[in-house]
């Protein structure tokens, strides 16, 4: 008597699941399609790049060869990497203690919000004076200039995330450390920092991506040797037309490492964000 009912229930459940899987698969297709297309563009012979309906063709490695071996793109990647890493390190070094202080000493209720609000500052307003200062300092066209500019948006975001993470750590932990014979600062870096490490990693990844993706500041502040990858990608769009094939290679080269990183960290990212940063 109960068997048919149960079967009905099960199949309904299975149906829902199939529907969910279908929608998710569709979303995945929408996300992956441009990548596929870009990849095809990177190995298409030049005369076929403008043909939307060509899926089979003799592939060419010329674009890959040109970009990886005979262009500045590898150097641009290193530049981007150096800039992003330096930005993140500085952001963590300055943001971490401050976030800890904001979290622990209950600095005014609006503080954490104004930290976030700092991120909203339009780059356009900061770039003019930054440009002039960096220019005075002789730092235009250097990676240092880009790092400095990227700090303007990476530091607030990283700090803000960290405040959330520190909030999640029970106060007793550092009190225990202080009773155990450590100063509050020692408690901070010997006990709290190791505990908040997943949070630090999440914030670092976020900061890294923000810096890695920026083109606006880098466009204005870098040149020649110091060009970062997004600027280089934009550079394939010249007055003589976009070199689609090469640009496709550059885009893939820019994206793949980040995708690999994101693949491995996404789980931690979700978990550690859930731990704290998504709350006020």
């Amino acid at each position, binding site marked *: 008597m109960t068997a048919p009912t149960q079967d009905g229930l099960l199949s309904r459940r299975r149906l829902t699941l199939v529907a969910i899987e279908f929608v998710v698969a569709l979303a995945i297709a929408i996300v992956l399609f441009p990548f596929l297309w870009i990849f095809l563009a990177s190995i298409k012979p*030049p*005369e*076929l*790049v*403008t*043909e939307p309906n060509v899926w089979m063709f003799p592939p060419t490695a010329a674009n890959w060869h040109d970009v990886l071996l005979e262009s500045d793109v590898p150097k641009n990647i290193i530049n981007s990497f150096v800039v992003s890493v330096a930005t993140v390190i500085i952001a963590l070094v300055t943001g971490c203690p401050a976030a800890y202080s904001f979290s622990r000493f209950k600095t005014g209720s609006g503080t954490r919000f104004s930290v976030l609000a700092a991120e909203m500052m339009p780059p356009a307003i900061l770039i003019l004076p930054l*440009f*002039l*200062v960096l*220019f*005075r*300092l*002789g*730092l*235009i*066209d250097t990676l240092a200039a880009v790092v400095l500019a990227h700090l303007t948006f990476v530091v607030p975001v990283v700090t803000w995330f960290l405040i959330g993470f520190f909030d999640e750590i029970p106060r007793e932990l550092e009190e225990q450390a202080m009773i155990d014979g450590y100063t509050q600062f020692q408690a901070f870096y010997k006990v709290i920092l190791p505990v908040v490490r997943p949070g630090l990693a999440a914030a670092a990844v976020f900061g890294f991506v923000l810096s890695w993706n920026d083109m606006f500041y880098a*466009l*204005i502040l870098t*040149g*020649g040797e110091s*060009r970062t990858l997004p*600027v280089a990608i*934009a*550079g394939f*769009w*010249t*007055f*003589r*037309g*976009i070199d689609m094939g090469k640009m496709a290679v550059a885009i893939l080269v820019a994206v793949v490492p980040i995708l690999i990183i994101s693949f491995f960290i996404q789980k931690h990212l979700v978990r550690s964000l859930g731990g704290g940063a998504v709350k006020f």
Partner: protein
Amino acid sequence: MRTQKWLATALFAGAASAMVSGSSLAGSLNIIIEEVPDYDVVRVLTEKFAAENPGIEVTFDAMPFDAMRDKILTSALASSATYNVIIVDNPWMEEFAKAGFLTPLDDFIAADSGYDFEDFVGPLRDIGVVEGSTYGVPYYNYALGLIVRQDIFDEQGIAVPTTLDDYVDVVKKLTNDDFYGAAMQPQKGYKVMEEWKNWLYATGGELFNADGDITINSPEAVKALEMYIDAFNTSAPEGSVNWGFDEALRAVASGRAATMLSYNWMLPALNAKGGMSGDLAGKFTLNEVPGGKAVLGSWSWSIPANVDDKDEAWKYISWITSKAVAKDRVIAGGAPVRTSIISDPEVWEKGFGEDYYKTLLGILEDAAPLSSGTSAEELIDIVGTELSAAVSGQKSVQQALDDAAKGVERAR
């Protein structure tokens, strides 16, 4: 005069002002250059210069167009230039010269006996002249020409149009369901301005009259824009209202359109075997724009005012633009600027053939810059925005041109 500038910079951090940036070392030339095929040619040729002048180390800072303007500006504002040699786009020439960023080159040119400055095509040469002084010598041109699919014209027995009225008729006639008479570039700003201004010349209009009054909303301009919109609506690919140079080029290259107004030196690229146009290679020809007078673009070599060793900079410029080197450059694929080179049979033979060069010379000699004045860059944007608004139907032709005139008046 400089006190004002320092007053402004007094706001800088104290430590900052003590440091001076980017001074170039003696014996080294740092050149800012746009990353285009012409640069590849120049870079290779320069190795020869370096070999001849072991004391001078030449480095290029190549970048996309959009990054160049503020880089040049930065260098010009410094107490000592980052770039000893710069290239200047024609809309910037007057602006930079009047801002005091550039060195007058007249004395250098006069002192250089075999240089033959007059050999540069007149309209190109004039771009470098501001209020009687020469601030730039031509690097390469990007004058516009009419690029057509000759095979289609031949097939249908149609002559390549020489007047605007003919042109509009022809592109309408050539348009059918999946083929278009003209690939146009009505993208806001530079692109639409660059294209439409050819139409403006063809109807006898100009942006300013001889007295310098704004004539952007003159009846000629209205007519030019109306015809432009007519052609766009009837003969250009659907949904191409935002197209720029790239899309138009690709549409022509992939056989979707019969004609385009574009840079003259695109022709060799279109006709190159194994290039972007595949089987269509060889079927394109270059012609003068309908109406004859073309929009001229050019890059010029200049020496910033704040360069320490100007002799060295001139040494390079005069070398790279000298007749001998210019010939090598053009043969290697560079866009020509000297009359003697364009007319040189050796160049015809090793380059892209007599027809191409003769047409090119015709275009160059009857051409005028896209825009001039100290606010040329802004002017292009203002007019280009209004043109785009009219093409996309957001404004009436008269309204758009009136607004353009108003905007230009303010920017001046």
